[in-house]
């Protein structure tokens, strides 16, 4: 068996960053590291947890960097770990990985470090999931969500729901298993009240999952508008020159991102949708289909209209196309003479006048964008569901809870108890506590039963 064979991966987020870390875990990692690292300090003995500066051999070139050795079991994975700290960016980190690969390591699978940490008893399932999210955290707010999870806040909240449920289950269960003990029946209205509370709690948690997802993957913003409406300048203005990432980053589920803007610690993926006009050109048609798709999949749409000109057929088409989407209408060129008829636009849509050229109202637009993305109720510093497995469990739990609540008085007691228990066990998929024995012990400690 080779559970602890050498695995390697870039530990810092993929892309541009000041410092890059490459992590090597498994048996013999130090031996491997020594083959490609020459410390400046001649007395260097790679004392665990100490940083050593030296030269990293990258094949064709050499780069200055640090090496830290973590000795098993005192490391993230519980195995021996070597970390290379080098200059940020894709180039250097990738070259270190390549070097490790040629010297006998293999590429880690996604989440394999966490998996090993988990298998070596370094964390619970719940924590493991939180840490995996932390690793992928690319922005500040997502970091907040992830650490909250790691601290077990989710666990605490769900345990609280489970406790409420087990109170009902135990009492009903004792009432059924010991019919001669005159255990007072929980009234339907009492049960209903508790169930209502539970539904509310689950749904509150679920509601945060939208925010959690937006924090994790970023808010997809489609920028729509005809040419010359000032889309590109708006885009640049929003990105700000120093932040602008102009390369196209092909996401797995996203469309082409024209740039990433950060606001209040949340990532906004600005998606350009060029060429929204009717055409017979086949290639352009493909482009239009793609744009439509982008609009469809975006979280917020910025519809840019040139306020110095009358609205034409194409503007109207764009309005039509984004109808029903979560949109903000941006009237650009506020620095120039405006055209009065545009005011008629104002319906229930949010309309904001800006100048991409001078930067007028751009901060206001960012704020509107933020509010629009989170429906104006961004939960700060509190428990937010970012893990899709947790979300799935909560979704199923919510369904069971609501069904229980709505079936109300029609439900037989045995089914009511079983369904409540089923809900309890479902929530146990988050907390890890779902053994029937726990309930049975609780019955005994609560009631005086016997013959």
């Amino acid at each position: 068996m080779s559970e602890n064979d050498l695995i390697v991966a870039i530990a810092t987020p993929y892309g541009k960053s000041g410092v890059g870390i490459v992590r090597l875990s498994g048996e013999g990692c130090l031996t491997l590291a020594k083959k490609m690292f020459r410390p400046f300090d001649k007395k260097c003995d790679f004392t665990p947890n100490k940083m050593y500066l030296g030269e990293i051999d990258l094949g064709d070139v050499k780069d200055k960097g640090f090496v830290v050795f973590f000795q098993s079991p005192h490391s993230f994975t519980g195995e021996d770990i070597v970390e290379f700290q080098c200059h940020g960016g894709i180039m250097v980190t990738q070259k270190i990985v390549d070097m490790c690969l040629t010297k006998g390591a293999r590429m880690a699978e996604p989440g394999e470090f966490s998996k090993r940490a988990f298998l070596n008893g370094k964390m619970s399932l719940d924590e493991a999931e939180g840490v995996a999210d932390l690793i992928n955290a690319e922005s500040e707010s997502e970091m907040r969500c992830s650490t909250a999870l790691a601290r077990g806040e989710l666990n605490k909240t769900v345990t609280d729901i489970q406790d409420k449920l087990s109170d009902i289950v135990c009492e009903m269960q004792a009432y059924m298993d010991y019919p001669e003990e005159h255990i007072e029946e929980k009234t339907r209205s009492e049960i209903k009240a508790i169930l209502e509370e539970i539904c509310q709690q689950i749904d509150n948690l679920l509601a945060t999952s939208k925010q959690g997802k937006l924090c994790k993957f970023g808010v997809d913003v489609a920028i729509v508008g005809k040419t010359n409406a000032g889309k590109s300048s708006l885009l640049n203005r929003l990105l700000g020159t120093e932040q602008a990432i102009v390369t196209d980053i092909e996401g797995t589920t996203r469309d082409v991102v024209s740039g990433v803007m950060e606001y209040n610690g949340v990532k906004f993926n600005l998606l350009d949708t060029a060429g929204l006009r009717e055409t017979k050109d086949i290639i352009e048609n493909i482009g239009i289909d793609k744009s439509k798709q982008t609009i469809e999949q975006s979280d917020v749409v910025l519809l840019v209209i040139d306020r110095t000109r009358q609205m034409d057929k194409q503007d109207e088409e764009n309005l039509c196309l984004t109808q029903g989407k979560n949109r903000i209408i941006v009237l650009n060129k506020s620095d120039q003479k405006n055209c009065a008829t545009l005011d008629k636009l104002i319906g229930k849509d949010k309309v904001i006048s800006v100048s991409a050229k001078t930067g007028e109202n751009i901060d206001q637009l960012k704020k509107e964008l933020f509010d629009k993305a989170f429906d104006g109720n961004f939960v700060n510093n509190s428990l937010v569901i970012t893990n899709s497995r947790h979300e799935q469990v909560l979704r199923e739990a919510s369904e069971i809870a609501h069904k229980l609540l709505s079936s109300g008085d029609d439900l037989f007691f045995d089914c009511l108890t079983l369904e409540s228990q089923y809900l309890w066990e479902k929530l146990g998929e988050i907390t890890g506590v779902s053994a029937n024995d726990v309930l049975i012990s609780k019955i005994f400690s609560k009631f005086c039963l016997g013959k």
Partner: protein
Amino acid sequence: MIKEEFDVVVVGSGHAGCEASLALARLGNKTMLATLNLDSIAFLACNPSIGGTAKGQLASEIDALGGEMGINTDKNILQLRMLNTGKGVAVQSLRAQVDKHGYHFSMKETLEKQKNLTIRQCEIVEILVKNNKVVGVKNSFGEEISCRAVVLATGVYMESRVIIGEWTKDQGPNGFVNSKGLSKNLQKLGFEIFRFKTGTPARVLKDSIDFDKFEEQNGDENIQSFSFLTKKQPKNICKCYLGYTNEKTHEIIRNNLHRAPMFSGMIKGVGPRYCPSIEDKVVRFADRPRHQIFLEPEDKTGSEIYVQGFSSSMPVDVQEKMYRSVEGFENVQLLRNAYAIEYDCINSLELLPTLESKRISGMFFAGQINGTSGYEEAGAQGLIAGINASRKLNNQEPFILGRDEAYIGVLIDDLVTKGTNEPYRMMTSRAEYRLLLRQDNADIRLTPIGRKLGLVTDERYKIFEKKLKLISKAQKDLDKMLSASEVRKLYEQKGESSQSINPLAREVLKRTNISIFDLKEHFNLFKNIPENILNYVQTEVKYSGYLKRQQMLIAQMRKNEQIKLPADFDYSQIKGLRIEAQQKLNKFKPLSLGQASRISGVSPADIAVLTVYISMKNKQDKLKNGDKNVREK
């Protein structure tokens, strides 16, 4: 000195021993039943009743498989009640007050008449084992009896000790002699021995009770009885009564706690949480002003009364004061004192799901010796041990019931995968698939299985087939389209919404306020179909959504059962498992992920670790094999 040769010897003639020896003899094995005392055959040492929640299901399951408990109960019923009516059919259970003497005599008669079965009063003191295989037993007379298998069903008799206050004596229940030496023999054979404790209340003289101070409790009429063979419900011929302890009773107990063996340290055995003595209840639930007690007749004369809820091991003088403090008991005469009893039992984790020892071939265990409590739990194990001993001797596959098939399956799975550190009692809450494990469908679940095993007689099978025919006839009526206008009329009458009417009979029956008897009355359906069949059909329709959910969960569970774990694996290699889980897994070597998940001390997180580990291991194994293939090419 070989006295005689048998296929199997069953040790003990309690409820487990009776079922085991009958099953063995009926399956054609030459069987000997050895008992300390013929007068203790099927003796109801504690309450004179059979059934109750979950236990009623067990008794029906024993019956459906071709066991004796249900038949013997129906022969001796004093009062029959259906518990939990109004709480849903899944938790409804039968409970019968029975004539304890009648119960003993009729079981003894059945045993005596059974072909292939020899009964003998003698004390077995040693199990003869050669090369980890049972070869015989030895009794206290020094006789050796050769056999290839043994079923140990010693109940509470091994090294038992009765305790009443400061007085104690090495004896079995009810003054019967106990078993000396067999427990030591088991220890020598390598079995871990536990010491458990149970107790029983006093029996009092009927004529010394003022019944006006108690609440009368009557039986139910027109309900199905225990055995599917019984055609007519036995008559209710006795009454029970309900009363209460009071503050004065509790004060007497509190003032004498220093004399209670439970608290003075005299009792060392572990007692059940669900069946506490009255002193235990008063201490643990100090805020309760009163506790219930039930008066139950011991036999049809009713002269001796069992006082349920009042078990104790207080000294006799305190007992008298306690009992007499109860309203209606002012002049009560205690005929037999309440007592506690300690006894030796084994660790059920040493058993296979067939109830055979993991180490010694041919050695089966059933009943209280496995740490359970209750007649029905014992009977169920006796039946399973008997069947499996027979199958082993005849080179047949082991017989194991799943948790989704029967309470018996839940019981045995709990015993062999979770073990128990207190006397184990069956409860509906232990059965996760209880909607499927009802009393009314025990025969549908198990009689075909019993038939294959060879225990279901032609008579029983004919009755069963007739029931199936009636059910399918009733179900055909459910596929009929009813007159929509008539359905509307019925809905209006019963307060059901008359919007979107689907006049299919089955759909109409799904409505909350419509019963199958409404359909019968208004639409002339279900001609000549008896009430119990209609009730069954109605349950299947009304519960269909929930039954489907349970089926789904069962399918999931079965998947985990199919993920096999390597038998020779060292779990301490997986550091992600908590130490307790590593030790437990190494000790029990579960056969599947499903079984591992039910071991106590193995948490869902441990199972998650195992799941990840196994999938990683399988992947690596596959990779390795893949490499090999490449190299070979």
